[in-house]
């Protein structure tokens, strides 16, 4: 059994109004040195595969097909 933690974030070129709002909120709490806040999604997967390489192929495929939209998002994953 493998577990994958998939992180999906908006591309840098895409504005993130949620992140900006959170940044303002943190600043109003006194955290003045913030350079940037970006928000994203976390998807935890558990999957069966015969080895790490096969699991990675599957996870990558799932990201490309459904979990992330390549026009506006990028993804990364941690597979164990």
């Amino acid at each position, binding site marked *: 059994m493998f577990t994958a933690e998939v992180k999906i974030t908006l591309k840098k070129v*895409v*504005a993130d109004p949620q992140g900006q709002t959170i940044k303002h909120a943190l600043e109003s709490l006194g955290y003045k040195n913030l350079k940037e806040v970006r928000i994203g999604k976390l998807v935890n997967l558990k999957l069966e595969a015969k080895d790490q390489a096969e699991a990675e192929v599957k996870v990558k495929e799932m990201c490309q097909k*459904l979990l992330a939209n390549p026009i*506006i998002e990028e993804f990364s994953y941690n597979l164990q």
Partner: protein
Amino acid sequence: MKFGVVVFPGSNCDQDCFQVIDKVIKQPVEYIWHKNIKLDSFDCLVLPGGFSYGDYLRTGAIARFSPIMSAVIDFADRGGLVIGICNGFQILLEAGLLPGAMLRNKNLHFICKYVELKVENTDTPFTARYKKGQIVRIPIAHNEGNYFIDEAGLKELKKNNQIIFRYHKENPNGALDDIAGIVNKKGNVLGMMPHPERSSEMELGSTDGRLVFESIVDRLKK
């Protein structure tokens, strides 16, 4: 001539579209459940607004893999007319039938109100009844209508006159280049965030949206 209104789990403007086609423009129309894949008898498909699959993950991302969608893609490839309204537009984007993607509204609010649109291109099966440059009142109701496409994509849209509707004077959601509706390169697939079916009867405050449906009827009668 027959219209089909595709119903996904979570569609909620399907009955409005059906009502306008059946009672206002008086044309044959049927609902098509998203598991149906036989579309041979239809001439125009409507993907209505709503919250297909609860808008989980991204708007339209899951509906895009409904069984009917590969049939819709074949239908469009054969030249059939497809119109996606609001969530229907979002599904067409996710399916790759139209270029670009939707982001959350810039102000992070769900916006439900009448807006003014400028009709940019009347040389399409969906807008032939409008006058080029005409300003129309059609309502929007969405949380993700902030249209995005990369620079090369925008250039391509402009070059091919694929931008059909633009928000006029006020851009409600942050959409790139004020884009409210686009067609594919071939011109037989339209996606628009505003709801023409909600502005087809005077009781609802405007009949400006009706011309979309009447333009389609004109085209199908040819």
